């Protein structure tokens, strides 16, 4: 991130090809942004969303909501947790964020906004690692402990690691693409800002040897829905996510990848 963005007190962060402009007068906020999102700063002139960010000083609880709250009323969205409060109009794309000076607040708020944006476009965010190899993207999904970080660590040098935690999937016509995200897991480093057409989806399991088996369509849908990030209790959005998952599985084959945790598993992934 250049000093120019700090002087201008605004920056556009583009994850998944979706630019979001953040405006904030607080220097502390920019140091958070610089640490986590420097690889995703965009020069795009027309952002999909614009947020005015206010950072509370000193840190205090902003909302009495202990768990995450995601509510919508027509076009208006309200996102709240103890460390942030967001009011956002999904139609105009404009919103306000009030947050404490922690990286987790803006990170969570952005993840939620992206899930809502993608739900209307046939894409989604997935609990899963992803990487590009030989120009094609591979997704590795699974619950905590399934091996997302392990398989990311084992990736060969020429593989482009998009994320070890949250994969970003977009739809463009009949094509599905995986994008790098700054949303890191145990690996604690952001993914590469790159994208490629998705070749395969793997559901991970650790085992004594490396095997790849096809998954029946119904099981694949169930597993996929279980791992799609979704925060809102909104019936229409639930239907959209269901449609998105079905559309995705019509185009991208799903397999179960059981792997022994050493580098040989990547011999099967290319």
């Amino acid at each position: 991130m250049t000093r120019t963005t700090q002087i201008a007190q605004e920056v556009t962060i583009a994850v998944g090809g979706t630019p979001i402009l953040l405006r904030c007068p607080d220097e502390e906020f920019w140091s958070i942004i610089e640490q986590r999102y420097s690889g995703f700063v965009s020069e795009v002139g027309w952002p999909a969303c614009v947020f005015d960010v206010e950072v509370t000083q000193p840190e205090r609880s902003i909302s009495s909501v202990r768990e995450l709250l995601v509510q919508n009323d027509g076009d208006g969205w309200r996102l709240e947790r103890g460390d942030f409060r967001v009011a956002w109009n999904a139609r105009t794309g404009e919103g306000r964020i009030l947050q404490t000076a922690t990286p987790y607040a803006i990170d969570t708020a952005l993840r939620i906004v992206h899930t809502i944006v993608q739900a209307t476009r046939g894409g989604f965010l997935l609990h899963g690692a992803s990487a590009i190899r030989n120009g094609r993207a591979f997704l590795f999904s699974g619950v905590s402990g399934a091996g997302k970080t392990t398989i990311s660590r084992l990736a060969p040098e020429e593989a482009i690691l998009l994320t070890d935690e949250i994969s970003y999937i977009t739809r463009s016509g009949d094509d599905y693409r995986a994008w790098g995200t700054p949303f890191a897991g145990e690996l604690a480093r952001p993914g590469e800002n790159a994208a490629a057409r998705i070749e395969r989806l793997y559901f991970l399991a650790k085992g004594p040897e490396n095997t790849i088996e096809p998954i029946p369509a119904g099981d694949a849908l169930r597993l996929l829905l279980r791992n799609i990030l979704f925060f809102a209790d909104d019936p229409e959005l639930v239907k959209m996510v269901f449609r998105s998952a079905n559309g995705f599985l019509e185009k991208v084959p799903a397999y179960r990848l059981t792997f022994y945790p050493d580098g040989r598993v990547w011999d099967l992934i290319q």
Partner: protein
Amino acid sequence: MPETYIARSTAIAARMLGGEMMIMSALDSTFFTLNEVATLIWQAADGHTPLSEIVERRVCGEFEIEPEVARRDAEEFVSRLSEHGILLVSDRPIKESNSGSAETR
């Protein structure tokens, strides 16, 4: 004994996949996979055909199941799905405005 009428809720998304009906509640995101018999009942849930007729004509007509067993299984299935708001249940025919336009592919 009063008749039971069943209708598909509009607050669901459903899809036939690999010979199974996948249903997701849009209200609580619960997910169900229906077997062949349950799928047949689901598809016949038009709000105006009594459940007893669905079981007798459709289920017993197409599968080798004892009528009593089929009735008991159907009632259990209907009860379970209605708990999640996926099926609407009434002792009178259910109007189309309450059902029928569920998102099913």
